[in-house]
């Protein structure tokens, strides 16, 4: 099954708009834009797992958080860490964590997979919350952002919000393009096959376990990249970034934007952060702004009940790439 993609012209238009945005936006909105892009990378990583491979993980925030904590723990207290060292290190930590956890969880399926990914994520949460490894519930601060130095020359100063924005944008484009290639490559096709009918794939001769583990680790690494950037942006890590609420949140973004589509994950992150800002702006909603989660929760309930294809699905219908289907979705895991 060919993954649903956007026409190239649309992608270029969006990319251009994103690149030009810092020229007209205020600093606060540039920072918001960077946050959206970081969340988009996170959502893309989960979409690979949930939307394309059919593995519903309720503990994906674990890899996001582990990489963020890696940066916080490796960084010297009041100086800048070296990006060339810390970014790969954080991603390796995320990869190893995903590999170890994945080795155990990928054997399970269906509801058990959901529960066991949750269990491992909560275990990691407890490690950082209760033990002396992290800063406990108060978290750890990173006082200076990592530096990007090539042969003594500093092409990008990450402390500058605009440059951080561009750095994040470049990484997002890279991740998007990378996943696009992966999904159209044999590996991605195999994942799609596994999602549709695992038994058949196994009977054809695919090592389903290896493919699933591969997807799990890849998703973990990309989540780690997002986690690293998130830690950079606000210079703070705290056990809540590993909690099940965070895992639920990114799952929500994936569905909001439309599962199984790369542009859906980006749209989901964008819509969620934007909606959060809109729903919580006192300027627009006055006293009810503080209850923004009501609107958000209601939206999710609506989407699940009425339109599970999400906003991306809506877009695809407008583009006439899929036809409208009411949710029927019989469960495929035999429970």
């Amino acid at each position: 099954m060919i993954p649903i993609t956007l026409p190239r012209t649309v992608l270029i238009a969006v990319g251009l708009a994103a690149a030009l945005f810092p020229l007209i936006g205020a600093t606060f909105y540039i920072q918001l834009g960077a946050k959206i892009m970081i969340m988009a990378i996170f959502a893309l990583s989960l979409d690979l797992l949930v939307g394309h491979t059919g593995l519903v993980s309720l503990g994906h925030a674990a890899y996001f958080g582990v990489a963020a904590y890696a940066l916080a723990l490796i960084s010297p207290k009041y100086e800048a860490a070296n990006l060339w060292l810390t970014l790969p290190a954080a991603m390796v930590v995320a990869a190893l964590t995903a590999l170890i956890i994945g080795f155990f969880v990928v054997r399970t399926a269906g509801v058990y997979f959901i529960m066991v990914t949750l269990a491992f994520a909560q275990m990691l949460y407890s490690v950082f919350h209760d033990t002396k490894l992290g800063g406990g519930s108060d978290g750890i601060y990173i006082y200076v952002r990592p530096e990007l130095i090539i042969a003594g020359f500093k092409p990008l100063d990450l402390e500058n919000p605009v440059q951080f924005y561009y750095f994040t944008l470049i990484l997002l484009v890279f991740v998007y393009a990378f996943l696009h290639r992966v999904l159209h490559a044999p590996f991605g096709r195999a994942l799609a096959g596994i999602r549709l009918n695992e038994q058949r794939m196994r009977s054809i001769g695919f090592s389903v376990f290896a493919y699933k583990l591969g997807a799990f680790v890849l998703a973990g690494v990309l989540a780690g990249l997002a986690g690293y950037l998130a830690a950079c942006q606000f210079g703070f890590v705290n056990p809540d970034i590993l909690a099940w609420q965070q895992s639920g949140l990114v799952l929500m973004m994936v569905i909001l934007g439309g599962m199984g589509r790369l542009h859906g994950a980006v749209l989901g992150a964008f819509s969620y952060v934007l909606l959060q800002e809109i729903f919580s702006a006192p300027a627009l909603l006055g006293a009810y702004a503080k209850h923004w989660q009501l609107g958000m929760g209601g939206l999710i309930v609506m989407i699940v009940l009425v339109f599970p294809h999400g906003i991306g699905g809506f877009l695809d219908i407008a583009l006439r790439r899929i036809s409208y289907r009411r949710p029927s979705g019989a469960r495929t895991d035999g429970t």
Partner: protein
Amino acid sequence: MKLNHNINRRKFLTATALLGGSALLPKPFAFVQAQKVRVGMMLPYTGTYAQLGTAITNGFKLAIAERGGKLGGRELEYFTVDDEAEPAKAPENTNKLVQRDKVDVLVGTVHSGVQMGMVKIAKENNTLMIIPNAGLDAATGALCSPNIFRTSFSNWQPSYPMGKVLADRGIRNVVSLAWKYGAGEEAVAGFTEGFIKAGGKSVRGLWIPFPNVEFQALLTEIASIKPDAVFVFFAGGGAAKFIKDYAAAGLRKNIPLFGSGFLTDGVLDATEEAAQGLETTLHYADGLNTKRDRDFRSAYYKAYTFAPDVYAVQGYDAGLLLATGLDAVKGDISKRKEIIAAMEKAKIDSPRGAWTMSKVHNPIQDIYLRKVIARENKFVSVAHKALADPARGCKM
């Protein structure tokens, strides 16, 4: 298909233009309101510290109202954020006030973990900040900064004198219990330092995660250890529950309970009988009986129909401090150096007693020993006169 592409390109460009346009909006507004001083209040209005956030806000606004609503000739405009006592959201929330609302002064907060986030953003953006409660030692210690002031206490301050009080009574072995986060750990450390220095023998530390209030297992443990006394740090809703649970477990009879004043401030309505006779140390007390305090109390009660507590006083003093700064420059908020100089030299005529700023911008103040009688924390004696925080690690 061509038609659809055009529609989509247009859709995206329109959306982006709208977003960009909305980003431009704040600027013209900022110009119109240039006359008012923008004050960002970041405090907890949800959860176990909600009452404290409200009391601080009330105190602050009372101080401003008493001056006719104008400081240095200019009115104030408030921007409020509920930090929910959650450190995870602290940098983002502070950033909203600093970057989006472009406040001139930050006032906040209660929870020490959240304060860390505010300190970081305030230092990065060189925003003037007044801390009306959070006792995070580092805020006027390792992380001190010229633009950060505090009108409350450092976590070490109110607990340190209690150590000597207990040691002087012949108490040698103590069990301490507190929430396991920055404020709890620093309070217990301050108490332990004072206690050991004055001749105490041992302090065994028990901890409970913040903001957990299931104390039963730990109360049983305390009973089995049988120390001479128990020292605790809790505040807000959790403090009320602890006092009740401790009494219900019958421990008050044989193992005396002590704490820093946060245990009993603002909770006496909820605890009724259980809190009677509890002794605590704090930089404020009921029954100080100075004219200044009496005037403040009647004004506060008239405005809010609640008796004030230490949190209200701290918020009030934050207002007084800001007034001192702005009066000195006649409202010109851009004259940062002069404002800081004025605030450093300020002698705050506070309801708790007059106090001055230490070199690291923390109050040098008297710590009182108080006892709970009826619904009040009655002043007993001065536990330590003009106590200054040692400000370890501050390079100012």
